[in-house]
């Protein structure tokens, strides 16, 4: 059984129950069960291949669930398509890497971010999103590909925020960014959670992310091995072993 150092009274937002998923014949999530608290930043950690990104993609309906159930606020969302999750359940996803439409302008990228809302609502919300990202605001008519890596990631997050999501799934936001920009992105995620958004983040930069997160869930070989408060885990001397994997990684931290 995975260890848990979290408060059981926290309301559950996301629940994966015995989920099996993967790519083709390759099974990555191996009867994964986990719970994510509402309005918190929860960090998914684990060695490469543990299934962190796959868990986010499965949650967002980009990979089929072969077994098990996924629930959001108690509602079964197993098999829901990304578009349904965005429009009906308030779940937004910022995948790993660069996900902008580089030949379209910054403003056009933002408009597409709100395509499920309708253009009237989207255009009303764009100024509100831009207030959070002044550097993006100044380059509205530039091609998205011309933005720096940090600006691109901010635009991606901004695009997701147009939907005012209840749940934000974000995969490796720090990849390719300078430490200062990473800090800005993390502060933004913290602010979102403080305002009530549930944030589930996958991040290789574990120590920095643990400072931001409320809770951490560790995966190994597609299974849940630990769920603890982030500050407790940060001070745990066994953190590196857990993050990097190893022979004992599948077992609970003592």
């Amino acid at each position: 059984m995975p260890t848990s150092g979290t408060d059981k009274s926290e309301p559950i937002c996301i629940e994966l129950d015995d989920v099996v998923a993967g790519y083709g014949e390759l099974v990555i999530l191996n009867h994964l069960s986990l719970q994510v608290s509402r309005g918190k930043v929860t960090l998914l950690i684990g060695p490469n291949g543990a299934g962190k990104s796959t868990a986010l993609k499965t949650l967002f309906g980009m990979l089929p669930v072969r077994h098990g159930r996924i629930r959001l606020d108690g509602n079964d969302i197993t098999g829901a398509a990304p578009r349904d999750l965005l429009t009906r359940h308030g779940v937004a996803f910022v995948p790993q890497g660069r996900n902008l439409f580089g030949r379209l302008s910054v403003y056009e990228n933002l408009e597409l971010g709100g395509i499920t809302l309708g253009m009237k609502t989207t255009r009303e919300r764009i100024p509100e999103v831009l207030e959070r990202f002044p550097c993006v605001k100044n380059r509205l008519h530039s091609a998205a590909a011309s933005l720096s890596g940090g600006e691109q990631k901010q635009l991606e997050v901004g695009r997701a925020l147009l939907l005012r999501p209840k749940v934000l799934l974000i995969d490796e936001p720090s990849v390719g960014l300078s430490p200062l920009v990473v800090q800005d992105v993390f502060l933004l995620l913290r602010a979102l959670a403080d305002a009530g958004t549930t944030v589930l983040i996958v991040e290789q930069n574990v120590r920095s992310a643990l400072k931001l997160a409320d809770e951490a869930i560790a995966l190994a070989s597609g299974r849940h091995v630990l769920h603890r408060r982030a500050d407790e885990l940060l001070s745990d001397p066994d953190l590196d072993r857990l993050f990097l994997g190893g022979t004992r990684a599948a077992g609970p931290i003592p």
Partner: protein
Amino acid sequence: MADFLQLFISGLATGSIYALAGLGFTLLWQTSGTINFAQGEFVMLPTFALLAFSAIGVPLPAAFALTCVLAVVVLGWGFKRGIADPLLRFGSMPVVVATLGLSIALRNGVRAGYSAEAHPFPSLFGDDVFRIGRVAVTSVDVGTLAAALVLVLATQAFLARTVTGRAMQAVAQDTTSAVVLGIDVPRMIFYTFAINAILACAAALLIAPTYLAKFDMGESLGTKAFFAAVIGGFNNSRGALLGGLVVGVCENLAAAYVSASYKDAVALAIFIVVILVRPQGLVGQRVERKV
């Protein structure tokens, strides 16, 4: 000089039709990875549909509208559901082979089932000749060039200035990111198939008066439209326009100043040079392949 200008303008008119068909190539490739080697036959079929509607007394504008509807259903939806969707999951190559087969089947189907003869087709723009100084320009060339340019530019304006058009561009640039934003990817892909079908109908209307309605009229057109799209840049819809005009003008000039026998080789020669020197096309963007 006057001859040169006449040939140039006439080449632009022919090239603008290559551009129309070539634009369809680039749209299908960008949004769905489909290469349609039956594109020429997609122009030939509406030509015969237009003739059939005209034969039962339907006025040309109404016949064109009906042909467009029919083309969207058969050459848009039917082609997507029947050939592209089932085969694309195995990559682009099965679609290439299937559309090559489709082009042969359509050509020979029309020859065997309808007629092997060339049928005259009414001209939209009359037979007038304008003189500007010593340069004589036909109303057909001017009308064809203007109509084709309007259609290509209108398509580009739709892609660039409407939210639906930009969503189609988004699907073309990064399908996964489009899914993440909730863009209805299958619908956007269908729209490109529908636009391709309508562009093919327009090309039929413009090219048939000059080249006549014949079962094999699409053979050369499809090949040249493909060359035009690659020469301009397969991943840039503006490239199809440029490539079409370049091919049209060069083959017209080569036919006049070199030999008419070499006319059909010009597009191939430019295609080979572009592939060797600038494989992304004249205005296409270099794409890095992920390993």
